[in-house]
């Protein structure tokens, strides 16, 4: 099972994402932003960080990277893609997911262990969780406030496309406590918190994050 992890200039969490893939039992394949080549991977992770310095808007310049053109096309054909934090921002800028991520409503960068509730287990990246399962993973962002117009929010909720919601604390002002969403097909998922930092007892607050990476292995096997 080959899971690609893209490195952009300014990516921070590509190594942790690759490590999470390996701990879950997959083979991590390094993908480069400047190469229009997905190396025959079965799925792709867009990791966190500050790609292209996050200049202009978070994810705005990355969207035009050669690797992204390939990913947008492949995602349209069903390739599973998980965007974490900056990766989520890139997916929104690429219009693979609706809405946008804007400056935290309180203006501060936030870094905390965040409780989430998994609200959809049909996606390629969440099928290994139980519906309603509560998990604890790190969250760290300055521009994680998910916004969309009311119609889009209603549509996301109505179609069960909110995959995770913030519990206890809404850390960034996201509409309706939304922490992650998926596309209609369920192959593309964006998530603001960082499951790849919660895969080992030694370094994470839990190992709850592994579920995203074991999910994709099952999804690809069953596809």
């Amino acid at each position, binding site marked *: 099972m080959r899971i690609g992890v893209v490195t952009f200039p300014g990516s921070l969490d590509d190594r942790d994402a690759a490590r999470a893939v390996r701990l879950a039992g997959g083979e991590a394949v390094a993908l480069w932003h400047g190469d229009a080549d997905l190396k025959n991977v079965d799925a792709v992770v867009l990791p966190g960080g500050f790609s292209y310095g996050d200049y202009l808007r978070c994810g705005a310049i990355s969207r035009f990277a050669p690797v992204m053109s390939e990913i947008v096309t492949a995602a349209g054909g069903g390739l599973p893609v998980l965007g974490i934090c900056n990766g989520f921002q890139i997916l929104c800028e690429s219009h693979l997911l609706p809405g946008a991520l804007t*400056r935290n409503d309180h203006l501060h960068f936030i870094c905390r262990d965040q409780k989430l509730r998994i609200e959809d287990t049909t996606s390629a990246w969440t099928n290994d969780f139980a519906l309603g399962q509560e998990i604890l993973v790190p969250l760290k962002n300055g521009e994680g406030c998910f916004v969309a117009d009311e119609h889009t929010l209603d549509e996301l909720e109505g179609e069960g496309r909110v995959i995770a919601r913030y519990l206890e604390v809404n850390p960034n002002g996201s509409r309706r406590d939304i922490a992650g969403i998926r596309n209609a097909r369920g192959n593309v998922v964006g998530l603001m918190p960082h499951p790849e930092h919660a895969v080992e007892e030694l370094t994470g607050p839990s190992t709850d994050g592994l579920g995203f990476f074991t999910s994709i292995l099952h999804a690809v096997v069953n596809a």
Partner: protein
Amino acid sequence: MARVVVDVMLKPEILDPQGRAVQGALGRLGVVGVTDVRQGKQFVIELEGEVTDERREQLHAIAAELLCNPVIEDFILVVEEDQ
């Protein structure tokens, strides 16, 4: 020579926490009667040669696709031809 100026602003319905912080500072500095502050971006693009209709169209597309995110922002593009 021509100059193309693109102003990008958050849509009115999108919360602007930066503008709100500036509004708070204005109040602390004794500026009275401020009812709202919105913060935006301005891009100033210097061009060689004339701005033909084709180039204007291209710049418009770039403003819409790259300089602004139409989900949350609006833009105004103005071409200032050199006299």
